[in-house]
């Protein structure tokens, strides 16, 4: 199991009132006695609420909210790649290099991103703005090459288009 990272803020993570309302909506989707089914959606929510990643304190809090042992939450959080267990930048740039994208020159997209952001895979910029990750197939293969930035897909990329997209981020 990968090492869980402690939060550096010292402030215990707590959901806002609005987030707690969303937790209630999530709980309603599953039979009352099957509350553990909510762990993935609540982890997704926690990641959005707590700055894009999940500290050990955040996982413990999710365990408390969902009502399951912390270890079971750690198991889930470490199994799925979408749960970030260390801080990520404001913009998480995830570029696909799997077969369809590779055939459509994702190597050039990777080079463009690495030189534009001055980052290698797995690195974050010091100003906290960007994290660059290599990812497996994201299911947009007929519009290859592609990348995902936070919630959005960017498809049919060229190196020029990559620069443009990065430049236009607020």
């Amino acid at each position, binding site marked *: 199991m990968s090492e869980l990272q402690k939060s550096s803020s010292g402030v215990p993570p707590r959901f806002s009132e609005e987030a707690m309302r969303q937790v209630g909506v999530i709980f309603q989707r599953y039979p009352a006695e099957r509350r553990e089914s909510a762990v993935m959606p609540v982890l997704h929510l926690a990641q959005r609420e707590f700055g894009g990643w999940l500290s050990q304190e955040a996982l413990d809090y999710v365990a408390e909210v969902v009502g399951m042992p912390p270890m079971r939450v750690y198991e889930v959080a470490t199994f*799925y790649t979408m749960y970030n267990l260390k801080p990520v930048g404001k913009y998480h740039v995830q570029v696909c290099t799997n077969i369809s994208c590779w055939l459509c020159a994702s190597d050039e997209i990777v080079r463009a991103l690495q030189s534009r952001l001055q980052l290698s895979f797995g690195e974050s910029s010091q100003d906290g703005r960007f994290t660059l990750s290599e990812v497996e*197939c994201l299911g947009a293969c007929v519009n290859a090459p592609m990348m995902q930035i936070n919630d959005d897909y960017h498809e049919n990329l060229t190196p020029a288009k990559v620069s443009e997209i990065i430049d236009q981020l607020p």
Partner: protein
Amino acid sequence: MTKIVYKHIHLENSHTLAVYKSVGGYQALEKALTLSGDDIIDEVKRSGIRGRGGAGFPAGLKWSFIPKDDRAKYLVCNADEGEPGTCKDRDIMRYVPHQLIEGMVIAGYAVRAERGYIYIRGEFYREAERLQAAIDEAYAAGYLGNNVMGRGVRFDLAVHRGGGAYVCGEETGLIESLEGKKGQPRLKPPFPANIGLYGGPTVINNVETLTSVPDIILNGGAWYSALGVEKSSGTKVFAVSGHVNKPGNYEVELGIPLKVLLEEYAGGVRGGWDNLKGVIPGGASSPVFTKAVCETVTMDYDAIAKAGSMLGSGAVIVLDRSVCIVRAIARLSRFYRHESCGQCSPCREGTGWLSQIMQRIEQGKGVRGDIDLLLSVASNIQGKTICALGDAAAMPVAGAIRAFREEFEYHIEHGRCMVA
């Protein structure tokens, strides 16, 4: 050519209930609610539709396995679209979510499931939003809930986002994940039809399969089975990616010649047909075809199997002559190593070995005997694991060696690609 799942996707605002209703949406559900569950299952059986996710199991037969006991039953839509090369379900979900919902309510009613889930891959955030908006509309209009269309039928539906694990596309891995656990597949039997989600009888169908259901109910199973070819009835979306001039999702009748699909729909192979090197016909895990096979093979379950590969999810990945097959397969091997859930030793260890050996051949460090070693590792994975991920990792390697052995040999001998 007849279209079913994509027939409305080009309409403006096709994702809304208003547009879907304007083209006859939810009329199939209205009709279905006047039939018995068994009648619906018979109709789907008669259609001959086979699972569109990869395994190709007859959907009607799957539904008929649900026992008629008092346990709570579940319907799960597998929208975890993760097989490299595959992106057909995404367009259904973002453009015609109501057609999927209608298919699910009908399926739920047929097997007496009162609760359904759409397990969508987590990265499809926008698509999940679309689905949720459509579900909200369907609840408000009385197509979902505890009194569907005023007929006293209950069906609740929710979206569940995954977390980025390919193995959750395997149906029992998906169930584990939906129950809030690591997505490690279960030993079968018991099959989900008997013991599935929360231990209850569960039907799991792919997005495309369920989205085909409304038309089958409206027009009849016989109508559907007249489309396509024998044992591969109906239409199928092929996601054509890679080296073609017009990559895209194309819905065609099963049995279409691969060459026609590429030349007439996908704009032709980049640089012309003679520039074709090979085609991976059914997603990353299906063995690659050489050009010679591509000349004549037709796109149906049996013809592709007979030619030594599989139709899988319908992801057609086209490689032109510039592609180094060793590098292509090395990339796929890295993928399977990354996605192995670690539960079964042959897969956990074997995918690692396949990837390392492929990597060293690709890097020019291959040694004599590596080809035999790859084949040996592959055969020690295949058929020896709980789920099909092991097979999926082994098949492309063994298939590529079968089809392009001289390239592997060249790579090992000369330490570089045979192609320029």
